[in-house]
């Protein structure tokens, strides 16, 4: 069995699209037949849980019992990839907790694959977050995600300042999530299904649905672009999927 991989998706700021990115990652692994489980730290509500209820558990990542639930089962869960959607404000505390339990050391020694998707917001505070988060990134794959899905303009950023932060971090990779048509995004929210099911015109229990063809088309096109980014960073290889030549198939209306 491949060594376990943990992907943390987070930001210290709220409303920057952490759960949206987590959803695209789960859809990507689903399309590539990589068994995945997810933990939603937005206790007790759980937005990720709403879209991927079959593979998601709600946890409080700061509690010891829930940390055990996540990390003591990495080898025994039957899934090779664990995605943790960290709620706003908890990224740095979560990384600190991972350091304290020795998880980061295990990642550094190659026993575990560890990747962080750090979702950046438009404010200058995000740049400070990068510096703070970078302290924990030795041994991890660090991805800085510029999320344009909600039309973020990153207006407060001075590119030179951003570059100075970006280049300070060894092996950081930038990912861009493009904008999705607002109405299409809203419709997926209302449907409460994974993006992939929406494209395939299916409801929560795989029953035939009646979503707009236009909106499904926009989601398919957008999801294809997002997956293109994941292909670019070789996400399946990072999590140790055996078929390294395999790139994701495009989202299709037939699943």
């Amino acid at each position, binding site marked *: 069995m491949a060594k376990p991989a943990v992907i943390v998706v987070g930001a210290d700021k709220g409303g920057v699209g952490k759960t949206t990115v987590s959803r695209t990652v789960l859809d990507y692994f689903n399309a590539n037949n990589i068994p995945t489980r997810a933990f939603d730290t937005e206790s007790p509500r759980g937005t990720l849980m709403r879209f991927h209820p079959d593979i998601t558990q709600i946890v409080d990542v700061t509690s010891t019992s829930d940390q055990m639930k996540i990390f003591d089962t990495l080898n025994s869960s039957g899934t090779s990839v664990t995605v943790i959607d960290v709620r706003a404000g908890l990224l740095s505390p979560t990384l600190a907790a991972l350091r304290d339990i020795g998880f980061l050391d295990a990642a550094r020694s190659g026993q575990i694959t560890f990747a962080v998707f750090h979702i950046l917001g438009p404010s200058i505070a995000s740049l400070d977050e990068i510096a703070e988060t970078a302290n924990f990134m030795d041994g991890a794959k660090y991805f800085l995600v510029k999320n344009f899905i909600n039309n973020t303009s990153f207006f407060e950023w001075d590119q030179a300042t951003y570059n100075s932060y970006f280049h300070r971090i060894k092996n950081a990779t930038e990912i861009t999530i493009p904008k999705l*048509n*607002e*109405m*299409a995004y809203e419709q997926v929210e209302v449907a409460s299904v994974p993006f992939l099911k929406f494209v395939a015109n299916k409801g929560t229990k795989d029953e035939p649905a009646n979503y*707009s*063809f*236009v*909106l*499904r*088309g*926009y989601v*398919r*096109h957008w999801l294809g672009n997002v997956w293109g980014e994941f292909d670019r960073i070789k996400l399946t290889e990072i999590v140790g999927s055996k078929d390294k030549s395999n790139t994701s198939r495009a989202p299709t*209306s037939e699943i």
Partner: protein
Amino acid sequence: MRRTPVYIICSPRPAVGKTLIARALTEFLVLQRGKVIAFDINLREPSLLNYLPRITETAAISDTFGQMALMDRLIVNDNVPKVVDLGFHAFDDFFKMIAEIGFMKEADRRGVDPIVLFIPDRDRASIVAWTMLRETFPNAAIVPVENEHVLWGELPAAFGRVRPFRVAALPAFLKSIIGRLNFSFTHYLRDNKDQSSELHQWVRTNYTRFRELELNLILHKLG
């Protein structure tokens, strides 16, 4: 189940006869199939809606609501042919949108046959747009329309590899007759007893060519 044709009459250029051809085709389809829905996406040109108000709906593609209202109906295989009269202002946005949402591929899967009737003139914009369409939709039925009144000669060489749909020019006085809002091609065929008249032959020839076009596309699909 029988497949549903969706004709898209288009050009990146104004005043090349889009609405005329959309009118003639819509009337032909009414005669042939009994029912047609036409969509008028013209912002500033003479409008199909003015000629065939009972079977024509206006459509807009500038926002997502309008796109849904139009495309969610064009994608349905309901055995009712659709005709889209696409104004030149909307040309780029329309084809960009249908490429993005994957209309051509999904239409084929659902038993809908999009047929693009492209009306060029001698302007470079026509060749650029034609090339774009052929590259963006390599497997789609895209037919150039050789409108004699616009080209006054053969199609430019860039269109040479595809057999065009030919429309003969009419004398000015006959053009003024068919330009009347209450003129109907089918009623004219039925009511005018002089089958040798130029207009009678013009309408009949076009109807025959529409039928041939449909047959050719069916044979092409079967082959």
